[in-house]
C-alpha cells in the first residue's frame, strides 16, 4: 500500500518565523506541465512593512557581529544547503522543469556562492578601505560599513530560482546588511525552502526576510519605505523598476539598477554596492 505524502505549506519568512500572509492570500504554483505544486503565500504591503521592522531590529546585532562570526555563519548556511542538496534539486526540477543536471549545477553554484562570500567578510574592509596619507598631523582611516536595511528584488525563474536569490542576498549579508527579499515571482518554492536552510543555520532572526508575492505590488512599497536604506532592482524590469527608482529618490535610498549585475553574478563590486565608507580623522601630537 503506497503512503500518502505530506505536502508542505509554503509561508513567508519574517523575523526568523514562518507566518502566513496577514492578507490571507495565496498564489497557486503549477509545475511547467500544469500540475498543482502548492499554494504559496502572497505577501501584502503590510507583510513587507513587518519584514522591514524585523530587519531593522536585527541590524545592530548582525552589523555589530565580528566579521569572523559573520563569515562562519555564512559558511554554516552553505553547510546546511549542502546537506539538503538533493531536496533542492528535486524541488527545482519539479517547479521549473529544469533538467536534474542543470538543477544540480544551480544548487552547487548557490553553495559555492555562499562559501565565496563567507570568505570575504573579514577581508572586504581591508581591500575596500585603508589608511589615507593626508598632508597633516592626522591619523586618517576609511572603513566600509553596512548600508542598513536592503530591499532586494530577486531575479526571476529563467535566471534561476535559487541561485538568483542567493546571489542577491549573500553580498548584502557579507558586510553586515540585513535584507528583505522578494523571491522570484514565478518560481518561489526553492526560495521559500531556502528560508528553512537559513532558519537552521545560526543566521539571527530578521537578518534575512523572504517574501513571495507580486513584485509589482510589493516592490514599490519597499522603494518608498523611509526605513529602507537601499534597493537592489536586479530582478525588476520595465516600468516597475523605473517607478521603484523614482520612489527611492524621495529618501535618497541607494539603488542598484536592473542590469548592473548579472542575475547570478558574484563580484567584489556587488558587495561594495551596499557599503558606506566612513572616514575617521584623529589628531596626532607630541603632547
Amino acid at each position, binding site marked *: 500500500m503506497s503512503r500518502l505524502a505530506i505536502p508542505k505549506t509554503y509561508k513567508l519568512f519574517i523575523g526568523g518565523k514562518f507566518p502566513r500572509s496577514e492578507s490571507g492570500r495565496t498564489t497557486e504554483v503549477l509545475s511547467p506541465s500544469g500540475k498543482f505544486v502548492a499554494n504559496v503565500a502572497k505577501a501584502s504591503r503590510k507583510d513587507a512593512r513587518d519584514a522591514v521592522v524585523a530587519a531593522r531590529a536585527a541590524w545592530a546585532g548582525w552589523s555589530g557581529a565580528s566579521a569572523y562570526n559573520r563569515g562562519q555563519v555564512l559558511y554554516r548556511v552553505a553547510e546546511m544547503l549542502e546537506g539538503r542538496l538533493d531536496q533542492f534539486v528535486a524541488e527545482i526540477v519539479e517547479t521549473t522543469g529544469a533538467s536534474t543536471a542543470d538543477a544540480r549545477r544551480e544548487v552547487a553554484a548557490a553553495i559555492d556562492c555562499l562559501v565565496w562570500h563567507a570568505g570575504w567578510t573579514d577581508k572586504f574592509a581591508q581591500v575596500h578601505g585603508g589608511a589615507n596619507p593626508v598632508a597633516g598631523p592626522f591619523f586618517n582611516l576609511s572603513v566600509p560599513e553596512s548600508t542598513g536595511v536592503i530591499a532586494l528584488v530577486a531575479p526571476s525563474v529563467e535566471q534561476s530560482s535559487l541561485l538568483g536569490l542567493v546571489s542577491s542576498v549573500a553580498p548584502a549579508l557579507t558586510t553586515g546588511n540585513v535584507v528583505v527579499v522578494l523571491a522570484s515571482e514565478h518560481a518561489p518554492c526553492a526560495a521559500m525552502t531556502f528560508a528553512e536552510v537559513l532558519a537552521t543555520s545560526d543566521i539571527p532572526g530578521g537578518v534575512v526576510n523572504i517574501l513571495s508575492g507580486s513584485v509589482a505590488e510589493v516592490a514599490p512599497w519597499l522603494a518608498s519605505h523611509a526605513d529602507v536604506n537601499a534597493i537592489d532592482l536586479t530582478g525588476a524590469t520595465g516600468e516597475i523598476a523605473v517607478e521603484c527608482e523614482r520612489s527611492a529618490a524621495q529618501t535618497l535610498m541607494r539603488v542598484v539598477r536592473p542590469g548592473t549585475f548579472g542575475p547570478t553574478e558574484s563580484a567584489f*563590486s556587488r558587495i561594495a554596492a551596499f557599503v558606506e565608507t566612513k572616514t575617521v580623522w584623529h589628531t596626532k601630537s607630541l603632547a
Partner: protein
Amino acid sequence: MSFRDYAPAPESTAILNLRPHYGLYIDGQWTEGGGGSITSISPATEKSIAEISMADSSDIDRAVLAARKSYDTVWSRMSGAERGKYLYRIARLIQERAREFAVAETLDNGKPIRETRDIDIPLVAAWFFHYAGWADKLDYAGLGPNPSALGVAGQIIPWNFPLLMLAWKVAPALAAGNTVVLKPAETTPLTALMFADICQQAGLPAGVVNIVPGHGGVAGTALVEHAGVNKIAFTGSTAVGRNIARTLAGTETRVTLELGGKGANIVFDDAAVDEAVEGIIAGIFFNQGHVCCAGSRLLVQENIQDEVVEKLTRRLATLRLGDPLDKNTDIGAVNSKAQLARITAIAETGEAEGATRWTLDCEIPSKGFWFRPTIFTNVTTSNTVARDEIFGPVLSVLSFRTPDEAIIKANNTPYGLSAGIWTQNASRMLRVADSLRAGVVWANTFNQFDPTSPFGGYKESGYGREGGRHGLAAYLANGGAR
C-alpha cells in the same frame, strides 16, 4: 579703540585682471549664452564685479556635444600618463596664480581671504596634483579589472567653496578619462571662469573642460536631462538632489550626490575643553557656516554644558567680522541676499519655538549681507534649528548624559555627512566613531579636508565619495550602485 582692534589690513585687489564681461567657455572658445546675463556682485559690498553670460538649454547642448567630440577624438585616446601631465600642469598653474584666485574667490563669495588663501586655493592645487598621479594608475585603484571612463560628466557645484568644488569634480573626472561640462553656481561663477584661462594656459585640448554658468532651473536642468551625458555629479541641497535622482530614474546616467548635513559635534566631559571650543567654532563659524559638513549641532555632556557655552561665547567675542579682504577677518559676508533671508527666517523660527537665542554683539557693515554669529541653547531635538540645515553661522546646543544618549541624538537626523567627537579617551572615541552614521568623523578636530581622504554622506546626505581612491569610483565603469 579696545585692545582687540587692529588697523585695517586689506589684501590688495590690484592682482586681479578681471574682464567686465565673461561668456561661456565651450570647446576651448569664449562664446555668448542664450540665457541672458547676470551681474555678479560682491556680497560684502553689493558692488558689481563682472557681467556673466548665462547658458540656456541650447548652450548646454553645444557644451555636451563639444565634450563628447573631445572625448571621442582626443581624451579617450590619450594615455593616462599624458592626461596626468595636463592635470599636473593645472595644479602648478593654480599654485602660480594662487593669490589672484584667493582674492577673486573672496571678492565673489564673501569668505575671508585668510580662508581662501590658506585653505580653498591650496586645496584646489592639492586636488589636481593628487588626481594627476592617478591618471596612469587606474589599474591599481582596486575598482575592478580594466577600469574605463564613463564618457561625458555633467557637474553642478555650489557657491560655498566655488573653486574647491570645481577641483573636487573636475580633477577625478579628467584623471579617470572623462570630459566635463561644469555649471558653477549663479552667485559664484567668477573663479570657474578664471579656471577656463588655466585650461588654456595648460594647453588642455578644446572641449575637455567646458564651463557653463547658468540658472539651476534652466542650465542645471538641461544638463541633468541631457541624453548625451553619462554621469551627473552634484553638490548642493538635498531637495535638488532628490529631483536629480528622480529625473535620472530609468536612465543609464550614473549619479553621485553630495548633499546637506546637520553634523553633530559631541563634547564629552573628559575633553580638552579649550581645544573643543576652538573646534566648535571651526565647525560652525568657518566659512560663515556655509558648509554642508558643518558641526551645526553641539552635543555637550550635561555636567560641562555651562562651562562650554560660557567659554564659547567668550571666545566668539574675540572673532572679527567684517571686510572679507581684510587679513584679520575671521567671519565674512553671507553669500547672498536670499541666503541671508533664509538664515534670518530659521533663526526667528528657533526663537518662536522656544529656544534661547544668543547673538554676538558686534558691528556689521552697512552694505552687504551679514549675519551675526548666533547660538541657540535650550534646544530640543524636535526644534527646527536642530533638524533643518541652516547653512549659516548658527549653532544649536543640546545636552546629553551618557555616550549612548549622545549617539542616539547624533544619529537622530535624516542626514549623515559629518560628526565630531571631543574626548581624551581613545577607546571611547573609537567606540562612538563606530556608532555614528556619518561619512566623515573628526575626532578632536573638525573641518579637515585632504585630497587623499574620501568625503561623502550616509542617508539623505547623498551617495558616492569624493577624494582619494574612492573618489575615482564615481567616474569609472564597474561601479556598483549608480
